[in-house]
């Protein structure tokens, strides 16, 4: 695999991770009704 593809993959992973954290913690108000629940789907368990 050439370094270019390696970089692309790594950056993609970073974007997904950052995007996930942002939606989880900073856009919580919109989401909270569905996602944060008793089954512990909320960052703790």
């Amino acid at each position, binding site marked *: *695999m*050439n*370094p270019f*593809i*390696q*970089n692309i*993959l*790594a950056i993609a*992973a*970073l974007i*997904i*991770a*950052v995007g*996930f*954290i942002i939606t*989880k*913690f900073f856009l*919580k108000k919109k989401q*909270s*009704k*569905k996602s*944060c*629940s*008793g*089954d*512990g*789907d*909320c*960052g*703790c*368990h």
Partner: protein
Amino acid sequence: MSKQINVALIGNPNTGKTSVFNALTGLNQKVGNYPGITVEKKEGVCKLPRGVKAHIIDLPGTYSLNASSLDENVVIELLLNKNDKDFPDLAVVVSDVENLKRNLLLFTQIKDLEIPTILVINMADRMAYKGISLDLEYLQEHLKTKIALVSTRKNQGIERLKSLISNYKDLSISHNIDLTEIDKDYFKNLQNTFPNQLIYKLWLVITQDVNFGKTDRNEIDAVANFKTKSKSDLKRLQQKETIKRYQFINDVLKKGQTIDAAQAKDLRMKIDRIITHQVWGYVIFFIILLTIFQAIYDWSSIPMDFIDTTFASLSEWTKNQLPQGTFTSLLAEGIIPGLGGIVIFIPQIAFLFLFISVLEESGYMSRVVFLMDRIMRRFGLSGKSIVPLISGTACAIPAIMATRNIENWKERLITILVTPFITCSARLPVYLIIISLVIPEGRFIGLGYQALTLMLLYLIGFGAAVSSAYLLNKVLKIKSKAFFVVEMPNYKLPLLKNVAITVLEKTKSFVFGAGKIILAISIVLWFLASFGPGDDFKNAEEITFKEYASQNISQEEFQQKVASHKLEHSFIGITGRAIEPAIRPLGYDWKIGIAIVSSFAAREVFVGTLATIYSVGSDEEETIKNRMAGEVNPILGGPLFNFASGISLLLFYAFAMQCMSTLAIVKRETNSWKWPILQLTIMTLFAYIVALIAFQLLK
């Protein structure tokens, strides 16, 4: 075309309603929340003959439609709102054969709502044992329903229940009770004013604040006029209503049920004489707790060590086998250790939920409530607070939600505020790794020092919870009426299936809930640790070369110096060093600082963060623990994780409110930002001070 029937499963607590639900749906279920509130909503699908599907909702357990808690309110809101998408086509009322009389109260209320209703008489396997026999024909006729005699333990009667569900159109919807007989003038007047409404529905709206279907809303608003009766008058009517219902039930059961007292065996009394005994009760409770902690520590250490080494070698393998590059490094140093940091907690979480669900299922938890009430009340808590406090050892979130059945608001608020002090399973990994680093192995009267330390930390958490409850009880000026009614259910052998589903469900939601966040944070951290701004980072090799040019160091050592120089000047290193002055007095370096900050998302991130940070700087295949043991304190010299800094860290984690999700739940449950903010400030400040004192004294 496939058809779907909405089925609501309703019943008193402790009737085995969830077992019926599990028997109908198997693993075909999902747990969510009712919109806007944190009441657990369990739904599942059950396949019926002829391609019909039943969508089954397991409603929260309730003794009656007169709701006294948020959970119970869910039941009545759903049953009154015909426009709700989940509005049931039929209700299945689950009752327990030993408590049929009381269980039928709820049944008659639901019948009065004119919803087709099936009666499940559960735990039928206990009938012979209790000397009970039932005349089902008679009961069906007089209760105007169909009955399914079910034993989930023996797997009997479920097929009949399914066939009754699919033929729900044959069910009668006529009443059992005529409300107007209670107070003729009042109820007749009420019915005449609203000829199109069900009288029982009107009565429910008058006696409690329910929010119901929008279309009905306007018409029913006028009902307010009927609240003219004073509160105590209304309550007197409710009492008369209850008496009336019981009269009906007694009349029906007199012929429909025979109990041969001579045949009945009462083992529970014998067990309870000991288990709830004024002395032995407490001794037994303490022994059970001790066993649980020892077991969690001992049993889970084997799979945990295995997981730790497996991930270390997996990481090493990836690095050697895949072509070199950024992504391979990310995999080997960020993602795999991050995943390892999730998987490693599975054994403990599974064990913990195993114990908690066994205690609840067996009926023992209610005995603990009984035993502890008087003691807890001294601290402004209720005996019912013991359930949140014990579940808090798993996670504060379900624990805080479990406070809902504490009827007294002040006791409930105090319980919510102090529960985060209880050692939750997220603290466990932090504790375990630090204990294994700083507490020597060895034994004291059969118990390991390390296990004792863990036990001590649990006691400290519990102590902090009750003493802050004591203070809050003195400080908070809230007046509220205290009611305390706890049912003491019969002892039951926990159903393996129920326990297994709970353990599986909770573990799964940890792996996919918290796990995703831990993984995401590990990825971000890896980037922050692997890149940095400015020349210091870019020219790390030259700078290190110059610095060590005069010294004779090996190539390997040189590489390590470069790596640590890079880490120090990476984004994460810069941030970490910026906050270092604040945490240095506690005995921590900037790496621990980063771990503390990132673990605010969830405590267990602490270990994953350190794993990521240290693996960025190292070349060799090593476990997290070995890497941490090798760290050197940059200022004092000697191992970074020594007795003083270790104890300081343990205490910091014992007291600090390191969990965003808990704050969010507290906000929702108290309906105000005031309490979570207060919690965060006080707990963190206290944690900091205690950790500071501990380190300064011990160093």
